[in-house]
């Protein structure tokens, strides 16, 4: 039927993959069975799957991204196991190639970015005192597109084969001539779907932050996390269309035989590298900027001081955003574009050290004269500084074009970017989860387990990646599944592998913490357990669905801090309560996500007619949306009164879980 080669469809013959196939099947049966048994389908559908509430969407992003962290983390551990000893035979070359490719893609696009977008979703409307984002339904669509892209990418290793040309998927290697299996179609199409979702998110946040701020919150009174997320969203809007085009051209090259990047027909392989990094470099700053914002909030809160140099912080993120657009060539100095090109891009690249340095020094001076409270979120923020500096200065070393000829594509580079991404983004996400957890769920994560998590992870991280700098300088290249005994790399590789085991223990501690706290943590906590400074802490934990009964009015930076000091604006009079208009739930976003993944799946397998048929569903969705005049609903005063009084008049003392 339709020339489908059924015998090739499933990947067979490999015990690891067979194991995962069985595990996936069992998990799915388990989930479906469990939900049916508990009669939770209706609840799941109406409370979560069709929700347009930014907080719930944010939480769904976070859950999906943490699952992806597992997947990517296990890929990382597999690589570390394979290279622990010289000439190991745990993974063969093909398998190793698939593992680092999926590791890179999943970690960057399906873990780091969605985690940050999830946190942005939960926090930003709260920080700016808004009731939701500008386009709640589009927000849900963004999530479902991301989710559908992620799922499509993840099934690749059991159905059809995983992409294996690196997360950069350079041509000609990634073209049909050298990768005839459909595996790399997954890369092109799954990323495309998720990328469209991200672009929509970016637009949504730009408009939300520009237009939905509460009364009195001028741009220069916005919390730093909102600022950095705003700039990151601007970069998303500027960079993601480039990825869209690059992936579309990759798709036509692979599926329809065009000649953008091929060896024959006049195609140019360098063009792919150029387009990929035109997006790819801004992408790493899309990751780091919101993370910088998270740290800014945490440093200020736990030093009990406002952020030092607020204006210069904003100047520096704007400078980073502009510079991030003009450095992409530093990823291919070795492509022979000549000394003039390399010189210019060396200069722009190194220039990024200046605004980043400004931020580092401002954070240090935020803590100076403060009273530094060593909570778990703060520990992550503290560890970030030294670790990230190592990543940053090695980045500057890579930025020196001539020197990069010796570092490029070695483990020195791999060490650099794990030293920027993990302290920069992963630590920040952990910090944010510990910090905002009570806001999201109404209980705190355990501080003691949190410290275990922290120390294991940070030590494991340094032991894993520090040796890679030295290996790289000794000539060990990246993406090589093995090395010889004579190379002398063995001891450092082993050390690094041991480090990754510690790292995994740290992550396990985190998972255990979630489990423990969900079961045993105190539910009777204050809505402001950290004595924090910004508006999200002025409302209930977990936040009621309309966020604020009365939208707060702002006169200064750190508004909530000053309200608390002056003891004003915290109470709510009955006369201030008004009906609140809220958007209705919608099943359309999840429907669109589903159609996109089905159409995408057919396209991956090059079953064009089926794909076109499925795409009709997309058009149907758009038409339904166009004729949708649902105006939302109003929350009645009585209901608001009831909700507000339950959290405002808690009986007895509330417990702050801070040691």
């Amino acid at each position: 039927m339709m020339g489908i080669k059924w015998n090739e469809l499933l990947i067979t013959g490999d015990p690891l993959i067979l194991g995962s196939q069985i595990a996936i099947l069992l998990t799915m049966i388990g989930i479906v069975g469990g939900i049916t048994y508990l009669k939770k389908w209706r609840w799941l559908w109406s409370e979560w799957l069709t929700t347009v509430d930014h907080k719930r969407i944010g939480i769904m992003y976070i859950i999906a991204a943490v699952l992806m962290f597992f997947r990517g983390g296990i890929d990382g551990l597999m690589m570390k196991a394979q290279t622990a000893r010289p000439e190991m035979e745990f993974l063969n070359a093909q398998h190793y190639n698939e593992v680092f490719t999926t590791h890179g893609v999943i970690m960057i696009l399906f873990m780091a970015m969605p985690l940050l977008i999830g946190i942005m979703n939960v926090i930003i409307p709260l920080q700016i005192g808004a009731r939701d984002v500008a386009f709640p339904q589009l927000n849900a669509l963004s999530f479902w597109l991301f989710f559908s892209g992620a799922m499509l990418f993840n099934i690749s290793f059991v159905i059809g084969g995983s992409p294996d040309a690196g997360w950069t998927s350079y041509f000609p290697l990634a073209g049909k001539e050298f990768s005839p299996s459909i595996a790399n179609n997954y890369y092109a199409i799954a990323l495309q779907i998720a990328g469209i979702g991200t672009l929509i998110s970016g637009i949504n946040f730009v408009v939300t932050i520009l237009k939905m701020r509460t009364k009195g919150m001028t741009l220069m009174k916005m919390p730093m996390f909102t600022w950095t997320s705003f700039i990151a969203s601007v970069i998303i809007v500027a960079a993601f269309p480039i990825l869209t085009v690059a992936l579309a051209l990759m798709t036509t090259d692979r599926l329809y035989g065009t000649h953008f990047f091929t060896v024959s027909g006049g195609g140019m392989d360098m063009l792919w590298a150029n387009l990929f990094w035109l997006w790819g470099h801004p992408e790493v700053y899309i990751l780091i900027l919101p993370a910088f914002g998270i740290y800014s909030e945490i440093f200020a809160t736990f030093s009990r001081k406002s952020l030092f140099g607020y204006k210069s912080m904003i100047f520096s993120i704007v400078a980073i955003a502009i510079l991030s657009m003009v450095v992409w060539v530093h990823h291919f100095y070795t492509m022979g574009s000549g000394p003039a090109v390399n010189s210019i891009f060396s200069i722009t690249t190194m220039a990024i050290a200046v605004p980043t340095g400004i931020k580092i020094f401002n954070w240090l001076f935020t803590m100076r004269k403060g009273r530094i409270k060593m909570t778990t979120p703060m520990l992550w923020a503290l560890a970030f500084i030294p670790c990230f500096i190592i990543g940053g200065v090695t980045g500057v070393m890579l930025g020196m074009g001539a020197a990069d000829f010796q570092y490029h594509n070695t483990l020195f580079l791999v060490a650099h970017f794990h030293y920027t991404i993990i302290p920069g983004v992963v630590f920040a996400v952990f910090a944010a989860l510990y910090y905002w957890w009570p806001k999201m769920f109404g209980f705190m994560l355990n501080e003691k387990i949190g410290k275990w998590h922290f120390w294991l992870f940070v030590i494991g991280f340094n032991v894993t990646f520090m040796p890679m700098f030295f290996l790289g300088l000794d000539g060990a290249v990246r993406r090589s599944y093995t090395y010889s005994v004579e190379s002398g790399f063995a001891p450092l590789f082993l050390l690094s592998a041991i480090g990754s085991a510690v790292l995994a223990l740290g992550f396990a501690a985190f998972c255990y913490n979630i489990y423990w706290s969900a079961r045993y943590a105190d539910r009777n906590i204050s809505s402001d357990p950290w004595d924090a400074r910004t508006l999200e802490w002025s409302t209930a934990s977990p936040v009621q669905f309309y966020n604020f009964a009365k939208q707060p009015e702002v006169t200064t930076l750190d508004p909530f801090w000053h309200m608390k000091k002056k003891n004003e604006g915290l109470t709510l009079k009955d006369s201030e309560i008004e009906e609140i208009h809220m958007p209705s739930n919608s099943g359309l976003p999840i429907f669109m996500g589903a159609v996109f993944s089905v159409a995408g799946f057919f396209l991956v397998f090059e079953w064009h007619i089926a794909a076109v048929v499925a795409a009709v569903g997309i058009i149907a969705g758009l038409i339904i949306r166009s004729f949708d005049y649902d105006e939302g609903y109003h929350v009645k005063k009585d209901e608001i009164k009831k909700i507000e009084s339950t959290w405002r008049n808690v009986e007895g003392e509330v417990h702050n879980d801070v040691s």
Partner: protein
Amino acid sequence: MKKFLLSLTALLPLLVLSGCNMVVFEPQGPVARSITDLINWSLIWMLLVVVVVFGLFGYIVWKYRERPENMEYEPPEEHGSTLLEIIWTGIPILIVIALTIPTVTTLYALEEVPKGYEEKEPITIHVTSADWKWIFSYPEEGIETVNYVNIPEDTPVLFKMTSASTMQSFWVPALGGQKYTMPKMETELYLVADNPGSYEGQNTNFNGRGYADMKFEVLAQTHEEFDQWVDDVKEKAPKLTEKEYEDLLKPTHLGRMTFSNTHLSWVNHADPDSKAYTNPELYRGHGYQGKIFEEEDNYKSEEINENDKHGHDENIENKENHGGGHDGH
């Protein structure tokens, strides 16, 4: 916290000290040496940055940490300081300038014959990378080698590089930095070896299943030895035929080979109008196979087409497959 800081600061000098036995810090020629000098220069500045920031960090965190004694202390309202902002914008700018100048001069210098060697007659060697092997052609001498290259010591060698397949990167860390090889275009790289010796070279740009073993040896010889070797090869080595050459380009690992002519006489892959020698059929392997497009300007002899139809698997030495789906065509 302290423990962690200590372990970090202990690791850093190690980065510099243990430099003595890492290939990048043991340059064996002027090109590599100029890069090592640049790296060392950058390390000094980076160390300075690291020491200053770590010091400041340790001091502040230690001094202002919360203790049972200072729970009463309420930190002051403080918004910033223009003077401080200027200082920590200005100094990094100066550091960046200090790094930029030698970077730019080195970038330009690397494109030329190394300083002090302008007088010496350079020799030209064409490098063609294929999956997963290196082919070296000596047009002046009329010889060709696979997976090893002999060069005279103390002589600038101009490598003219291209690829017959994917994008690869030519790197001999002891002698100099790397550069990509790409189909239908040419990149150039000068290298010089100070002394006779054997240096390892390899591909650093990932190009598929055989990537890890895509290595070659650079053997620097005295002038006499080199001339002797060239003569020997001319005399004793077989001639490479077009047919053998096509076989050679298939995705395989090969040992060393030596020929007394060069493939440049029938194809130079750097030429933008040259035929493409790609064999998509031979890359079929893992997973579900998609459609392949026949290209008009792709060169394939009859014979190769014949081969493809039945079990091409013999052609691929060291073919590693984990699992199914390679019977589908």
